[in-house]
């Protein structure tokens, strides 16, 4: 029973958020928007943590600021633009798609397509080869060699048969 309670607690426990009760907006819809924005905003002190889960002082200030902007009637994009004007694209975890970030967004896809193209080309070249068959000269030479081999084999069998009583075909 004790274990069951422990397991249930672990299953239903939610992650601990840094957002403090006094920051939370009364309107759940606006609060949800604030949380959504906060998750994509980098804490400028801890850098790899979104401000949504950071306990740094600046992160708290930015969370409150985001809620103020939302209360003032800003759209999500306007709030993000407000932050980018002060901290640059760096403050967003998802950088915008623009000329200076084309390499970032398109690069991996372009490399993959290039790799697939090269692999496809190589595979097609390899599978195309055997179906070309042998030229008439090569075929004649191969047949001559085969004929030579089979005649030698016959000699060997004949000599073996003399000393070995077993059936040579086995």
């Amino acid at each position, binding site marked *: 029973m004790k274990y069951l309670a422990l397991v249930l607690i672990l299953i239903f426990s939610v992650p601990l958020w840094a957002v403090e009760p006094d920051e939370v907006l009364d309107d759940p819809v606006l609060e949800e928007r604030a949380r959504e924005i906060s998750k994509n905003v980098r804490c400028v*002190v801890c850098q790899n943590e979104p401000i949504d889960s950071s306990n740094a*002082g*600046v992160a708290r200030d930015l969370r409150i600021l985001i809620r103020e902007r939302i209360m003032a009637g800003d759209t999500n994009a306007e709030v993000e633009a407000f932050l980018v004007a002060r901290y*640059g694209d760096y403050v967003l975890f998802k950088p915008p798609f623009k000329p200076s970030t084309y390499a970032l967004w398109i690069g991996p896809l372009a490399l993959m397509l290039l790799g697939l193209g090269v692999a496809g080309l190589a595979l097609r070249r390899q599978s195309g080869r055997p179906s070309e068959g042998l030229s008439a000269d090569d075929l004649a030479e191969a047949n001559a060699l085969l004929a030579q081999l089979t005649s030698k084999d016959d000699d060997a069998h004949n000599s073996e048969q003399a000393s070995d009583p077993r059936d040579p075909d086995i």
Partner: protein
Amino acid sequence: MRRVLVFLPLLIVAVLGGFFVWGLNGDRDPNAIPSALVSRLAPAFDLAPIDGIDTPGLSQADLIGQSDASVVNVFASWCVPCRAEHPVLTRFAREEGVALMGINYKDRAEDAAGWLRELGNPYDRIGHDFTGRTGIDWGVTGVPETFVIDAQGRITFRFAGPLVTEQAVGNLRDALITARGVEPGS
């Protein structure tokens, strides 16, 4: 066409290799945040003075349309590196004869006043940014931070961290000389 394609793998390796060499460069600080404010006008703000000291407050108007460039330093009494850079900054302002403006970041007035009484006050103006809101407008990620503002009020240089190494002070001096319109070294 085929001859060109032969060199394609080499080209790709060279581009990737160049990127890796750049990434391994020991002088590059991967934690450095590029400032969005450099080459822009100082943000709009108006800060009251710190209670208990005579130094006047600081606003955007004090930085725009001046006769000379100025240096803006963000500091706090609770910030240990600020204490370390304080004598360097004091000497720098005296030697260069530049207006040194302070933004006192998230500090209690009595703490800031006591700190300045203890260490000396090299600032011509200090704005008391108790809430840290002006710090956000300046894109401050921590204290101390130092900016160079040209006479028109444009931010020409930002340095995050204490001005304690010769290289940091040299960079600040070069930036100030550039902001004053004189080529560095002349």
